[in-house]
């Protein structure tokens, strides 16, 4: 070795090389830089969401009315389930940092257990998100999309605790089903390269007939009024707008249509929470790999649990991003 390495006589001096001014290892430093770039990616997405939202500030869906479900419980509970998800993720961050701490003390059993709990937390979070997506895609009341991109929802005023409250009514409860000729076009029944997705459960006419037959039903548009609520139309205006503008009956949400309001909203929701969910999923996979390395004693032999620290940085970052997604999708 001595023969191939030239000594410059500057060893130990500031610019002599081998100096670590940041006092962090190469691996940790690179993880930090990856986190910076990933943070910028997520900010780009969230800023784009903000852009579209500011563009349609007067008609953007109100998150409290979109995410109102809790698994196994019926009723209207806005925020509760996402708050639970946030707590699960913060909790898994805590067990992760406890694993890092146990790693500094070289306690293998403790690192193993804390990492195991972190993985469980991650799995609970990803499953919750899958459930959230499923509920969002399925939808609950149904709506009619108009030619101008408006979303007409249905409901009626009810008195709850002496107050007039607008209660949504599902399409199934009032639309009048009439037999019709229209069937779903599939590539095997017609032209081989033409097909379409499943047909909406009702036509706009069936919904209109149902609206006309129920005197107390009203249409609610996506426009936000001065009280910060969606505008409810008068009876005549309801019938008129549905007749004039109604184009398509939608139930739930996908990348084209969305019963909750602006179709952009569903697009951003799928993209941003999906990208974050993918980060959580890959985090769980990396955690599992390192979990097995811990069990096998790889880091015990290496004399340092720095790898746990690095995956920990990534895992906390995923938590950090969720804190922002939570704010901008569910709170603001």
């Amino acid at each position, binding site marked *: 070795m001595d023969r191939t390495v030239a000594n410059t006589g500057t060893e130990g001096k500031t610019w002599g090389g081998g100096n670590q*001014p*940041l*006092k*962090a290892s190469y691996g940790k*430093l690179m993880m*930090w*830089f990856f*986190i*910076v770039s990933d*943070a*910028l990616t997520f*900010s*780009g997405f969230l*800023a*784009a969401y*903000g*852009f*579209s*939202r*500011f*563009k*349609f*500030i*007067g008609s953007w869906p109100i998150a*409290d009315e979109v995410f109102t479900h809790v698994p196994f419980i019926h009723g209207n509970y*806005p*925020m*509760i389930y996402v*708050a639970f998800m*946030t*707590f699960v993720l*913060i*909790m898994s*961050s*805590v067990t*992760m*940092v*406890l694993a*890092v*701490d146990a790693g*500094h003390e070289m306690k293998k059993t403790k690192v193993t257990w804390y990492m195991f709990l972190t993985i469980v937390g991650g799995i609970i979070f990803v499953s919750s998100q899958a459930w959230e997506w499923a509920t969002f895609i399925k939808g609950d009341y149904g709506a009619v999309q108009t030619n101008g991109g408006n979303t007409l929802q249905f409901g009626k005023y009810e008195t709850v605790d002496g107050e007039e409250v607008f209660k949504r009514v599902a399409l199934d409860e009032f639309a009048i089903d009439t037999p019709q000729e229209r069937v779903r076009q599939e590539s095997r029944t017609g032209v081989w390269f033409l097909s379409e997705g499943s047909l909406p459960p009702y036509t706009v006419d069936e919904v209109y007939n149902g609206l006309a037959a129920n005197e107390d039903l009203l249409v609610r548009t996506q426009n936000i009024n001065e009280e*910060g609520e969606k505008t409810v139309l008068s009876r005549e205006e309801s019938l008129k707008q549905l007749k004039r503008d109604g184009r398509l009956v939608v139930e739930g949400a996908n990348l084209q249509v969305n019963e909750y309001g602006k179709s952009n909203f569903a697009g951003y929701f799928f993209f941003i929470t999906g990208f974050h969910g993918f980060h959580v999923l890959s985090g769980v996979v990396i955690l599992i790999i390192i979990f097995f390395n811990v069990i096998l004693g790889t880091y015990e032999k290496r004399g*340092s649990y720095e790898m746990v620290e690095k995956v*920990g*940085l990534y895992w*906390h*970052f995923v*938590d*950090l991003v969720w*804190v*922002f997604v*939570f*704010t901008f999708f*569910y*709170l*603001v």
Partner: protein
Amino acid sequence: MAHAHKLEIFRGAIKFKSNRQKIWGVLILLSIVTAIEVILGIYKPEVLMGDILGMKTLNWIFILLTIVKAYYITWDFMHMRDETPALRRMVVWTGVFLICYIVFILLQEGGYIETVYRDGFIKQDGY
């Protein structure tokens, strides 16, 4: 490996005895902040619905609380508090600067497009 952690938060107002105790302390802090957010989000107090700088006071509060949470996650869970000032500034200021930049541009332009939609009007010469 002896790791010295800084065990104070709130500029020394709260001191912890060990790193593990600090972790639980920060968890309690984050839980309280999240609980405040959720309660405000469900009840939406009327007082906070007025506009400040083009956005509802409540929304400013949410954003502020989010940054508070982000600070404690980065500083105490990711141990940024224990890194050298150079590393800390490299990571934080790069992010803060670029994020402020993109957020400002996109929100500004989004707001502008909204006024064009609302008023149906763009200023131009020669018509």
